[in-house]
């Protein structure tokens, strides 16, 4: 059973990691708690659903479409709730993104109804037995997409000009600006990437859990935040590893300790990290205390 549970943990962790990557990117360059990320994730899931159901798209097109739609949503988020809001008041951007969260969630309820919707079976379900473990084609697909997306992103962050600009901005806005980085553009691109990944995560979550609802955003957001802290603020590879780690911890505690207490463990970890290792397990890119 242990091996099977490890696979389960990996699956869960991959989806946590994808949400947390967006969070950590956005937090890195903006230094603000962007509340609406979970709702972007939810919109991504619905975008994928409608592309498959009514657009007749295959799953890859749906993933790409959800990514693009969510990236655009990220741009809208910047122009609506980030850029016009005063930055010298720490609570103002927090409240404005809470406002955006409320709008997106209730727009979905208003337009689509509050019910959970079935996610179409986009991939043929097949089971493979490898020794003691059973793994399905769906799981392989999800894991494959998640990991390749992370690799691409890692390459982008570490080895492209834009990636370097993002890292510089995350380090320090003023210095980055002095080095000739267009900070506003970097923020925009970061939101697009983070939101696009959240969109993909939403579709993958839909495939994995078979059903999506307008209320799926909040708990995803909270888990994403925990992973972001665990990995270190602004630390993208850290978020990836921490996501997998939290997935494993949750699954193993659910399997061997108790399922009601599962959330207790995630939040206890959150608090311990905050108190004793505020830079996360793998160190933050921005060590300054805030």
């Amino acid at each position: 059973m242990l091996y099977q549970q490890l696979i389960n943990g990996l699956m869960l962790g991959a989806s946590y990691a994808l949400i947390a990557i967006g969070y950590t990117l956005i937090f890195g360059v903006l230094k603000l708690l962007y509340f609406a990320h979970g709702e972007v994730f939810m919109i991504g899931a619905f975008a994928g659903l409608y592309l498959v159901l009514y657009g007749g798209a295959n799953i890859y097109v749906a993933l790409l479409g959800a990514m693009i739609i969510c990236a655009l949503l990220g741009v809208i988020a910047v122009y609506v709730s980030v850029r016009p809001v005063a930055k010298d008041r720490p609570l103002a951007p927090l409240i404005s993104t809470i406002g955006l969260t409320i709008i997106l969630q209730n727009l979905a309820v208003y337009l689509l109804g509050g019910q959970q919707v079935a996610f179409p079976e986009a991939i043929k379900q097949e089971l493979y037995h490898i020794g003691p473990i059973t793994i399905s084609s769906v799981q392989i697909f999800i894991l494959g997409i998640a990991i390749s997306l992370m690799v691409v992103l890692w390459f982008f962050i570490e080895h492209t000009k834009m990636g370097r600009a993002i890292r510089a901005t995350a380090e320090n806005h003023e210095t980055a600006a002095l080095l000739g980085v267009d900070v506003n553009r970097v923020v925009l691109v970061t939101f697009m990437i983070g939101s696009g990944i959240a969109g993909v995560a939403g579709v993958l979550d839909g495939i994995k859990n078979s059903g999506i609802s307008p209320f799926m955003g909040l708990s995803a957001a909270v888990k994403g935040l925990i992973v972001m802290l665990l990995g270190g603020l602004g630390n993208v590879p850290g978020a990836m590893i921490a996501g997998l780690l939290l997935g494993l911890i949750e699954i193993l505690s659910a399997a061997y300790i108790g399922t009601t207490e599962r959330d207790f463990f995630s939040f206890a970890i959150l608090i311990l990290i905050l108190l004793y290792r505020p830079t996360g397990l793998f160190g933050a890119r921005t060590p300054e205390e805030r």
Partner: protein
Amino acid sequence: MKLSRSFASSLAAAAVALFMSSAHDAEAAKLEGRSVKIGCLASVTGKGAEWGQTAKISMEIAVEEINAKGGIGGVPVELICYDTQTLEAEALKAVSRLVERDRVLAISGPCFSGEFETIAPQLDGQLKTVINSYCSAKPGLSAMSRWAFRNTLTSDKQLKPVVDAWLKEYKIKKVVIIYDAEDAVSKGEGAGVLPALFKAHGVEVLESLTYRTKDTDYSAQVTKAKSLGAEGIGLGACYQNAAAIAKEMQKQGLNVPVVGGACAGAPGFIEIAGKAAEGAYMSTAAFLDDPRPEVQAYVKKIVAKNNGKQPPYGGPRAYDIIYSYKHCFEASGVTNKPADLASDREKIRGCLAGLKKFPGVAGEITMDENRDGAGSSAILKVVNGKYVNMAK
């Protein structure tokens, strides 16, 4: 709620109806006033939005139908709805507004056990008015007040025949129970009702596993159930979670039959779980594939208004409440005069408490001594992607 516009047209319709068929309406007692007010509490937003929205639409359909046929006692029905936001505090505010400001004759709702439980104790004091829940399934709530009714079956009443039939068909000896530890009804089923029923049949419960309502990942529970060698799964779960669990079982190759309780047997279960739903037994407080014409007429209307989706059982139950109120308003000598409000409410209460075998789309309504719905529930089995009622 659409007030005056629909109000105006329904007034006109009522006038026409009166003019055309005065003989028919003459039997029912004439009511006074400009409108008959029925209050409605529905969680249109918040985490229970689905239940509230479908219930609200269902009640509006019933009111439209009644008004098109001349209203109640010649007076059109006015449905006054407030959104409880699935919050107990909002429900409490809304109920006193309905009773004291809007002066409604009776109230339909609220849906959720928590809301119901918050409101019920207040009814014996200032707010002497009937409330009637269309979905709360937690046992023992209506006993809190003589004004508290539930037009639905509590989970223990629903599950017994279903589990009996399930075990009869599948001959299972070892089960694992998976239930929602956060939801009062599901927990009641998973920790109380199901173990007792299994014990009575000599079925061994290998393990009880839990999850929380907002969880979306059930892989750990399913893997554990599989490794324990479960021959069947008992679910104390609402349909969304039940469907996700069934899907996860399919994904992990755990192909054993499933049985589920009050909240699981909604149309959404099949829709979301797809092929994984095959062979599952469910109980429900409303069977929407019932071939009776009134049921199909209702289903057609609600599906058109609900984004093409069938409602969970709260919808038809709420629809029936409006008709049972119509019956009681007409049968118990309600006058609808402002001065008679208190006595009218008392009369309605008395009528409702004595309701026996009142026909509704969700089945016959009979109120038991605790003012909870009684009677038989359907035994649903999923066959070829549709519910079949095994009770008949």
